[in-house]
């Protein structure tokens, strides 16, 4: 994905998107748009962008402010959008848009302070550094001598390894070596800056190998991965298997929905014609996407349910005192009984007529028998958990009406 493309949304719901995702006290929508445009115009060359940045009546922005706003928006958008690649590439992309304003400022301050050192300070640092090296060297020498002595005296009982590796001689203290050393330590001291530069490909999971080795591996059907850190024992060893044994399967709770959704587009996920590694991976990613789709649909249903409850409550408010309107609010509440959007229309109509009829009859009796009813409050959580039970109850005769209690909550009443 092009870096700037992320931000240039052509979505019809841009407004909604902005208000739900990108709202920020420091930034107006207009300025954000301006930022994305200018970022695009100057191709993410931040110094140029900062130089040309001129937003009417806007507060002065440091280059870090601009980058921070830009990258944080991009990250939010990436997270919210359906992703066609696998998870690894998504997090890889997210990493590319990582930006830590505070750290970046700290880094620049640090560089500035390095730059501003006086000659004396530099000299002092170098002297101290040499002193430190000398101390370390002495320490090592001392330990070596002590070990040798122990080995001579105690032999194998000393428990010391036979060879003590001595990595550095005094030669490393030459000025040349010192310079190199210094550079190395300097690099380490600077906090690693988050990369805003697109890195080359995903982090390699395969061992680096030559083209020749790749050809060899392909010929022999060999796949190499980084061996796990912990040693595999007999029990953790993955036994021989057929590739198709490890075909991904959707979670049991949503498996029927996944199967149905895929059957609609002509895919059988339980068997593959050619269950090769690539195809299994593709199937897995297809299943993940499908699961995400079904999750989204579920959320939509929940939100719709909430809307229905709210509408009913609003309707009730308006009709308080005016009995004639009650019926309308009833209608609104049971406009859609479907829980997953796939309940057939017929059932829906049946359910409606049934509930409307019963509301009438139930209302007559409620004064008398309300205490013998079971009350169920429609909370989305509960609703989710007892979906099946509810289904059964609809079949067995579910009666719905609005019960106005002190807390003004809608109830489902079930005859017991």
């Amino acid at each position, binding site marked *: 994905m092009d870096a700037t493309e992320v931000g240039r949304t052509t979505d019809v719901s841009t407004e909604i998107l902005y208000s739900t995702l990108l709202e920020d006290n420091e930034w107006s929508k207009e300025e954000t748009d301006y930022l994305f445009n200018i970022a695009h115009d100057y191709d993410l060359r931040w110094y140029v962008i900062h130089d040309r940045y001129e937003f009417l009546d806007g507060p002065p922005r440091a280059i870090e402010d601009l980058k921070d706003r830009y990258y944080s928006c991009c990250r939010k958008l990436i997270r919210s959008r359906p992703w066609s690649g696998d998870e690894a590439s998504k997090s890889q992309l997210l990493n590319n848009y990582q930006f830590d304003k505070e750290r970046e400022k700290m880094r620049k301050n640090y560089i500035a302070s390095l730059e501003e050192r006086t000659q004396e300070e530099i000299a002092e640092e170098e002297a101290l550094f040499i002193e430190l090296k000398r101390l370390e060297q002495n320490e090592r020498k001392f330990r070596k001598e002590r070990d040798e002595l122990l080995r001579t005296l105690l032999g194998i009982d000393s428990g010391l390894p036979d060879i003590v590796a001595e990595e550095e001689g005094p030669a490393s203290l030459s000025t040349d070596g010192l310079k190199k050393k210094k550079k190395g330590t300097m690099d380490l001291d600077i906090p690693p800056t988050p990369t805003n530069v697109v890195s080359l490909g995903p982090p390699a999971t395969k061992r680096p190998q030559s083209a020749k080795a790749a050809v060899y591996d392909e010929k022999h059907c*060999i796949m190499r991965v980084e061996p*796990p850190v912990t040693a595999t024992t007999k029990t953790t060893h993955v036994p021989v298997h*057929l590739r198709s044994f490890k075909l991904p399967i959707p979670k049991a709770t949503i498996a029927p929905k996944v199967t149905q959704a895929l059957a609609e587009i002509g895919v059988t996920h339980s068997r593959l014609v050619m269950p090769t590694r690539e195809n299994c991976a*593709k199937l897995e990613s297809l299943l993940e*996407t499908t699961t995400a*789709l079904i999750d989204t649909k579920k959320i939509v249903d929940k939100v*719709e349910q909430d809307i229905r409850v709210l509408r009913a409550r609003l309707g009730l408010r308006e009709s308080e005192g005016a009995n004639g309107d009650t019926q309308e609010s009833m209608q609104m509440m049971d406009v859609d009984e479907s829980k997953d959007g796939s309940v057939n229309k017929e059932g829906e109509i049946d359910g409606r007529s049934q509930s409307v009829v019963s509301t009438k009859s139930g209302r007559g009796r409620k004064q008398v028998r309300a205490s013998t009813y079971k009350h169920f409050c429609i909370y989305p959580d509960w609703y989710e958990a007892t979906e099946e039970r509810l289904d059964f109850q609809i079949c067995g005769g579910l009666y719905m009406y609005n019960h106005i209690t002190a807390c003004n909550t809608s109830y489902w009443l079930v005859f017991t």
Partner: protein
Amino acid sequence: MAEARVRVRGVTIHRPIIYGNTATVLTAAERETCGFPDHTHRWTVAVRSAANAPDSDTVGGADDLSYFIKRVTFKLHDTYSNPTRNIDKPPFELSETGWGEFEIHIRIHFVAESGEKPVTLYHHLKLHPWSLTFQALGTEPEIPSPESAAKFGPVHSWQYDEIVFTDPFQSFLTLLTAHPPTPLPRTSKNPTPFHTSYPASLEETRKPGVPEFTGAMERDEGERLEEAKEKIIKEQEKWKGILLEREKELERLQKLLAAKD
């Protein structure tokens, strides 16, 4: 040799195989000689390497698999005499006559060097030609008359798969790499083997000739899966849009309600 018993970590190595059966209708003369007058078909069930041998009339079987497979056990329907048949030499296949379809249990035993236990797979013996009129689950398939079935030629039912060894012993790895499998041809003039997961290929599978597994089949399936994913993603985008709208609506209603309180 202690070194040979060292596992090579981080390596998986697989061997492509096919398993399944071929069936032909018996002629009247054959029916008389086979000893079972009610038997209508001769079939051969087999485990073979995936690639076809050049100019051979069998599906698969280009490579001899006995370098890593020690024995294949076919467990037939109990009505057969000694239903458990062990095949200890290549080719790992078994021919029989019969009249009905049933599930065959295939157990593959590996050579001792592998240090692996046998794996079991199942194959539904297919005698009658493939058709697109799919039977409902649990019902008997429509059985065409032997005469019309014979016109279709031999019936093939094969499943491609890959036997995957993880962290193999060094000695076993050496053994495997001494026998690289014949790669599948990229494309082939021969018909594609039929598969229930891809019913649209039925016409393609009816061409004359010996069915052959090809690299194109893998690529085609990969493309089908990717297309399906694209469709799902489009759908997902649509629903995300709906969700945003609904959430907006919910918020509006909440505000409305709050304003009234």
